[in-house]
């Protein structure tokens, strides 16, 4: 049994904690939910994941050493909750057959290189036209298709704007690992967008024929 005085102090600190905690959580709720949506891919599970992470965060609030770090701290809890939920459900790790080596073909894949036409005159910009045709839904689906390991870093970096250093802290891996996973994740993402665009008929003519077309066009005009 703890002395009475200590108990009272504890009560006061907790009341202060709660106001701060609630304000922070409510302020970050859209962001936490946005990240959760891309991690678990549906609203219901995303709501459960956020609620679970918030509960865990409250229980381990003493582990937050610096209140300035609240955002990376709670995202770390969200990410860990997601990872441990995957393990509990005995979801087969999707990364088994994938190496983290960024020199793989997927990392080298570049939408820009597929789309860019160096002979085009300045008013033509097929790569920007391509991006303009993509819907929010197309992008979300491409993120969802990434294996967990790479999806997490793409979500933390491109969607939530965390720095490499912050991500290293969130995932407890070296910065070099963050970089290589991110490179790999982005390569896979661009490949998925390319595949989707082809299937959806967003890309109609082949690069070769359009190049010829623009070459002819250029000769006619100049």
């Amino acid at each position, binding site marked *: 049994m703890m002395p009475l005085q200590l108990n009272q102090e504890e009560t006061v600190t907790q009341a202060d904690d709660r106001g701060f905690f609630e304000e922070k959580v409510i302020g970050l709720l859209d962001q936490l939910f946005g990240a959760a949506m*891309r991690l678990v891919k549906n609203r219901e599970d995303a709501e459960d994941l956020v609620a679970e992470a918030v509960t865990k965060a409250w229980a381990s609030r003493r582990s937050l050493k610096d209140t300035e770090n609240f955002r990376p701290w709670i995202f770390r809890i969200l990410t860990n909750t997601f990872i441990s939920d995957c393990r509990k459900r005995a979801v087969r790790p999707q990364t088994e057959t994938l190496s983290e080596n960024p020199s793989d073909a997927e990392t080298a894949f570049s939408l820009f290189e597929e789309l860019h036409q160096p002979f085009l005159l300045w008013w033509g910009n097929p790569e920007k036209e391509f991006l303009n045709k993509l819907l929010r839904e197309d992008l979300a689906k491409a993120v969802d298709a990434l294996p967990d390991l790479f999806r997490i870093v793409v979500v933390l970096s*491109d*969607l939530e704007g965390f720095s490499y250093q912050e991500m290293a802290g969130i995932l407890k891996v070296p910065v070099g690992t963050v970089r290589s996973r991110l490179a790999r994740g982005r390569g896979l993402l661009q490949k998925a967008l390319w595949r989707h665009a082809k299937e959806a008929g967003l890309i109609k003519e082949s690069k070769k024929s359009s190049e010829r077309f623009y070459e002819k066009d250029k000769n006619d005009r100049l």
Partner: protein
Amino acid sequence: MKKIKTIGCEEALKHLLAYLDQELGPAKRRELEHHIEICRTCFSRAEFEKLLKTQLREAGRETVGAAFEEKIKSLLGRF
């Protein structure tokens, strides 16, 4: 003014994503910015990657419903 090292496309591409992520040190950043000013292909590529990044961020933006916010508030109230 200190002279900026001139880098080639290969070197520029290697650092492009870190540049867009604002993760390059000042010296490397100046080299890359200089290259982008003089190289049209790398300039276009930087614009493309930047736009894709912006679109991804927008695609990831979600808004919780009022019901869920209430649920979280009542959860917090029980702590």
